[in-house]
Every structure is written in C-alpha cells, then in structure tokens.
C-alpha cells in the first residue's frame, strides 16, 4: 500500500514569527557565546572594510584631482587690440548657445593689461617697455571652458564656424592648437587612471571578500559538529543555517560601525596631507560630508558579505 509522504509531516504549525524570533535568538546567543570566533571574524571583516573604504576614498581623491586638472584646460580666443568690444560680446552671446560650452569668461583689454602688469610687476624691463609704449598693446580675449576635456574639438569646430572668427581682422589667435597635444594626453591619462582606479577597487574588494569568506568558513568549520548534531535531531535547513546568517549579519554590522569609527581619526590625520598634496581635496571633509552614504554603503555591504559568506560556508555541512 502506498502512503502519501504528507503523513510524515506532523501537524506542526510553527508560526513564521516564532520561527524568525528563534533563529534571531539562536544567532545572537551564538555570537555571544563564541566570543573568540566572533572577535576574530569581526577584526578581519573590519580590516577588509577599511581597505575597501580607503580605496573608495582614494578613488574620490583621484577623481577630484583629475577634475581639477581638466578644469584648468581652456581654449582662448585672442582678439586684435582694435576689435570693437561689441563684436566680442556678440560672439560671446552666440557661443553661449553651444551645448558643449560650460562657461565663457570675457577678459577686456583693460583687464588683460592689469593682469599683465600684475604678473610682471617685478620685471623692470617689461615695466619700462610698457611705460615707453604709453598705450595698452594688449587685445581682449575670451576664455572658453567645455564640460569635458574631450569636448574641446567640438567647441573649436563651433568657434570656427562663427563669421567674426573667420574674419581674421578681429581674431589674432586661437590657442587650441597649441594645447591640443596636452588636452589629448590629459584625456588619455584620465581614462587610464580612472580605469586602473576602478580595477584596483574591484580587485581588492574581491580579495577582501575572499578573506572574509575564508574566515567565515573557519568559524563555521568550528561549528561543524554542532551542525551535524542539529541535523540528526531533526533540525530543518533554515534552523541550522538561519542562526549563522544572523551571526554573519551581526559581524557585518559591527565591522561597518567599527570601520566608520576608525576612519574618523584616520581621515582626520590623512586629510591635511591629501589637501596639500592633491590640491584642494580634503579627505576628512569628504568623509564628514558623506558620513551617511559611506555608513549605509559599509553597513549594507557588510551585512550582505556576512550573510553570503555564511550561506556559502554552511552549504557544505547541510548535505547529509
């Protein structure tokens, strides 16, 4: 006589709430009673997270430095001294409509003269030459910046379509072609540096993940006998695995919190150096301004890494 398998299933209506409550309690007790294992796992995870967050900070510094470098690149249109200002301002208005252009700075003849004097105020020869000339020999100029350094080619193409530019009576020189090699190199350098930066972050994140996974495997290996006993007395998979997932989550949460605490004095100390070395970007300010996103990122990734590592590590012992 064939008997349906359902007769094996006792009328055990275990409420989901009770189930979750017991799994969490087991996880918390397990975390607390295995202090040495918990301590070493948290230390390893904290170190891994600090490596990851340091790399993210490094990437942020690199990004900011590259942006600053790119900000310094511009295209300048130099006009003859006798070019009417109206013509130049009209050209500025038209160029403002070009989508690739971020901003245009107009430097008048007078301003250019003041700037020149300031720059060479200690050079007596130039000072004397200017006095002899008696008049302002400099022309006005437009300093044009694009959103991205890769857009300068398009910007220059747009400039050269303008009738005022084509008319060589007005424009003395456009310096794009002088800077072209530098701009091209900067573009190439930026993309390579960004690529290498991301590759390093991904590589070390994977290494950290593997280190955490190995630590969790060792922690769970220590509980191998207990897992086997639980299985023999009829514990279902979720009951054997669940507390380890909870423990993994707790490890992740605590490690994230510890990393955040440790990063405060570290970034404070490193901050002043990065500000002077990388020209402006203070890593401590970056940390403080991004406190909540950084914390959320670390907590989320910590909990996810903890849970995934526990899940992988317990799978081996749930087969029999």
């Amino acid at each position, binding site marked *: *006589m*064939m*008997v349906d*398998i359902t*007769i*094996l*299933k*006792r009328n*055990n*209506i*275990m409420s989901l709430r*009770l189930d979750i409550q*017991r799994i969490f309690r087991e996880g918390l*007790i*397990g975390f607390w*009673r*295995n202090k040495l294992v918990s301590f070493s796992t948290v230390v390893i995870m904290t170190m891994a997270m600090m490596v990851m967050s340091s790399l993210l900070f490094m990437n942020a510094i690199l990004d900011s430095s590259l942006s600053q470098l790119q900000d310094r690149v511009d295209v300048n249109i130099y006009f003859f001294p006798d070019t009417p200002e109206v013509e130049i301002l009209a050209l500025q208005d038209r160029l403002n409509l070009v989508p690739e252009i971020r901003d245009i700075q107009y430097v008048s003849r007078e301003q250019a003269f003041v700037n020149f004097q300031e720059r060479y105020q200690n050079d007596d020869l130039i000072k004397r030459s200017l006095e002899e000339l008696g008049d302002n020999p400099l022309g006005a100029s437009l300093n044009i910046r694009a959103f991205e350094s890769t857009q300068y080619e398009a910007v220059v193409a747009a400039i050269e379509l303008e009738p005022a530019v084509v008319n060589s009576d007005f424009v003395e020189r456009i310096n794009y072609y002088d800077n072209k090699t530098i701009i091209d190199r900067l573009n190439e350098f930026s993309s390579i540096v960004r690529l290498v930066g991301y590759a390093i972050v991904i590589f070390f994140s994977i290494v950290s993940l593997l280190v955490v996974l190995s630590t969790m495997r060792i922690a769970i290996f220590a509980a191998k*006998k*207990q897992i086997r*006993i*639980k*299985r*023999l*007395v*009829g*514990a*279902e*998979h979720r*009951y054997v695995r669940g507390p380890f997932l909870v423990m993994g989550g707790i490890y992740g949460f605590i490690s994230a919190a510890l990393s955040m605490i440790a990063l405060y004095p570290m970034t404070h100390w490193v901050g002043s150096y990065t500000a002077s070395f990388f020209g402006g970007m203070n890593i401590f300010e970056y940390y403080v301004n991004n406190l909540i996103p950084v914390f959320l990122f670390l907590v989320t990734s910590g909990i996810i890494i903890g849970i995934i590592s526990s899940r992988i590590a317990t799978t081996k012992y749930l*087969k*029999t």
Partner: protein
Amino acid sequence: MIVFDKVSKSYESKKISVHAVDLKIKKGEFVVLIGPSGAGKTTLLKLLLTEEKPTTGAVYFDTINIHNLRSGDVPKYRQRIGVVFQDYKLLEEKTVFENVAFAMEMVGKSDSEIRVDVPYALELVGLENKGYNFPDQLSGGEQQRLAIARAIINQPDLLIADEPTGSLDPEASANVLNILNKINDLGTTVILATHDRDVVDASKRRIIKMEHGRITRDDNDGGYHHPKKK
C-alpha cells in the same frame, strides 16, 4: 512499522558492515539489539536514522522507503525519532535546559509548552538542578541522562537508544530501563542496543542478536544468552 528488506551496507574499504538483513519491528514493540562490538548494530541504527544509505535493499518506516525521502523531508522524519547516541551528541554551546528545549523547538512547540515540559523531563532523569549547566560541566552519566531527556521529550514514534547505560551504575541503569519501559507503555516503539547483560536480562523483551553483520538470533526470550545455549 519498520521493515529492513534485504539490507546490506558495505563501505569503500569493502568491509561489509550489514549483510542482507531482513527485519520487521511492529509499532509499539520494544526490541533489544545485542551483539559484540563491530557486529553492525550501530550501522543498522544509522541506516534507520538515514545517517547512512544502504548499499542494497531498502528500509521502510510506515511503508515509506526512508532513503528515498527528499532532503527537505528528512528533518521531518527525524523529528519523529528520539535518539540516545552512544557518544551523546549534545550541543556543547547550549545549556542543559536549551539542549532539551532545542528538540521541542524543532517540532514547533510553543515557549510556554517548553517552559513546562523541559523541567519535567529533567526531573525525570534527575537533572532538575543542572538546567543552567553546559554539557562539559556534567559527568558522563549526567550527559547520558541529558541525552535521554532530549530523546523522549517529544514522545517520539520511535526511540533509538544506543548503549544508553554505558556510563551508568546498576541502579541508574535500572532507572533508564524503567524510563524506556514507561515511554514504550505510552506507545513509542523502542530499539535498545546494548552490551549490558543485566539490562538485557531485566528487559524480558524481544532480543535480536547481530554477529558479523547478520542477524543470528531473533526471539522473545528476553535473556542475554539463547535458552538452548544456557
């Protein structure tokens, strides 16, 4: 209720541990399994607990081939069995109370049921004052009694006891036998594997003797020695 149908178990070392065993145990029966060390008693019990798979043959529990169960159904099957392991298999990181409570939690008993039943079971085995101790703080005999409390707490359909009196003095052994008899009276099938001659003689139950992986004696004589050999 339990049927071993031509069950053999051999290991990779080619050593045959259980050889073509045919055995039927009725619901509510009390069976004493005897035999020298290495006779195959523990392997037979492991097969029944699905800890091992038979090389050939099949084991049925309530007409279900237990080795064909899906892995998700194995825990539910095991929840119907109480086991006193030879090496106790206690959860070292849990207290005495929690070890017994764990078995109840697995079958979905409520916290209030656990609070009532666990102290009762601990009192039954004389561990009422050890609830907060951990297994490594107990003597061998106490650990064995804790294993018994855990095995009987859910009033299982089947109770397997592998050498449950191994670390006990004669008086404590008699108590254990008494507990097993009581649980059997409540309708639980009991399989007791033992070397203890006094326990076997006192049980006056069906005796199954194993030697070299085979059943060499199966009678209701209730004595350690076969009547014809006395």
